[in-house]
């Protein structure tokens, strides 16, 4: 069970789900700014992320974000994705192809009036170095530009938590390094906690404070990134980290 702490954790997760023959049983909590979910393909990383976002219908368990319950199936609570205030950057970014950059970034701001929405989109585009890109369609952007638009779009409604699914997977080595630094900087500036799914140890090492090692739908080990990387608590954890 996830217990109640005096100071709420950034994220508390206790989930059980079944998809076909795959069983997911994930339990961890994190108070860190950046949490990485690391493991091989098929470990259940993306599925965990989708559960946190409220995009999966099945399963049971508890999810708390900053002490706020977004899911507690035993109590009959499952807040829908649109009310969770959890942003997500999808693996291939999922930018709406028929909308331009401005419309993509402003999509989650339907509660603001026109002027406020315009001002917020303008400031996000400038923060992300995307001035002059507002009228472009996603097909006219490079991989790195797409990622920055996806980040701006996810941050626009000021989420309590931002999920990133393999944010650098589609990018080449050099762009990846630049964006990793940009993401770290963005996190320091906005203060929004990040949960990052990755299969690259380099991302884990450079970005995360807290590490959750996943394999075959289970948490193999979890703890502060430095400690876990320096001193893996089990041969299984060692094998996962050493695989890279």
């Amino acid at each position: 069970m996830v217990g109640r702490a005096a100071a709420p954790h950034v994220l508390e997760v206790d989930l059980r789900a079944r998809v076909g023959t795959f069983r997911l049983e994930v339990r961890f909590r994190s108070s860190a700014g950046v949490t990485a979910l690391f493991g091989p393909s098929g470990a259940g990383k993306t599925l965990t992320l989708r559960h946190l976002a409220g995009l999966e219908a099945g399963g049971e368990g508890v999810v708390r974000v900053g002490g706020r319950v977004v899911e507690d199936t035993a109590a009959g609570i499952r807040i829908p994705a649109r009310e969770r205030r959890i942003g997500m950057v999808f693996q291939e970014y999922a930018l709406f192809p028929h909308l331009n950059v401005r419309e993509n970034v402003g999509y989650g701001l339907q509660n603001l009036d026109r002027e406020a929405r315009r001002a917020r989109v303008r400031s996000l585009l400038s923060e992300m170095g995307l001035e002059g890109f507002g009228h472009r369609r996603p097909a006219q952007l490079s991989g790195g530009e797409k990622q920055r638009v996806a980040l701006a779009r996810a941050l626009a409604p000021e989420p309590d938590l931002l999920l990133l699914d393999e944010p650098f997977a589609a990018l080449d080595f050099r762009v990846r390094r630049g964006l990793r630094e940009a993401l770290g900087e963005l996190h320091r500036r906005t203060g929004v906690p990040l949960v990052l799914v990755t299969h690259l140890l380099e991302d884990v090492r450079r970005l995360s404070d807290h590490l959750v090692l996943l394999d075959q739908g289970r948490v193999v080990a979890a703890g502060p990134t430095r400690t876990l990387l320096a001193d893996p608590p089990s041969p299984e954890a060692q094998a996962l980290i050493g695989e890279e």
Partner: protein
Amino acid sequence: MIAVDLPPLALSLWVALWATVLSLGVGLPLAWLLARRTLPGRDLLTVLILLPMVLPPTVLGYYLLVMIGTGGPVGRAAEALGLGRIVFTPTAAVLAAFVASAPFLVRAAQAGFEGVDPAFPDAARTLGRGELSIWLTITVPLAWRSIVAGVALTFARAIGEFGATIMVAGSIPGRTRTGSIAVYDHVQAGRMEEAHLLALGLALTTAGILFLLTRVGRAPGW
């Protein structure tokens, strides 16, 4: 001089237009439901919807007559509601064209909806949007080409409807005698020039409308 039989042509357009509008209203939500793999009874529903595409038009007309005839459940309900008799009215012609043509819309739109990457509506959900808003702003625009192609096929099928229409609506000049029925009547009566002109009118009108729809549904600029 041979007068072009305009009323049947105009009636055909009127019937096809209404059948297409009805198909959109009923067919789009249905296509969207069928595109969801989790829908219970999906296969059975698919067969039922596609049946009018493969049934002989007379069989389709017969079943429609059973439904909307004065003794049928829909026919009786319409009379009870004070809407009067349906058979042998323009409404019956619209219903026949609708039943025969709607499957084309459902089929095309379903393929369009299935082609929309589920990551797009998922992304929209995490951005705080409700399902109807997502459907209108993401799903339908992304399936647009397939929907327009479906509209074109539906309209073309509706304007050419003959077998079911003649069974439930008959061939009453000015009321239910559509273009395709009038061509048949002209040929039966040996009025070949009238038949020729009307057939040409129908073919040109249909081709013109299909051409316009093809342009609307051209590859988008994204």
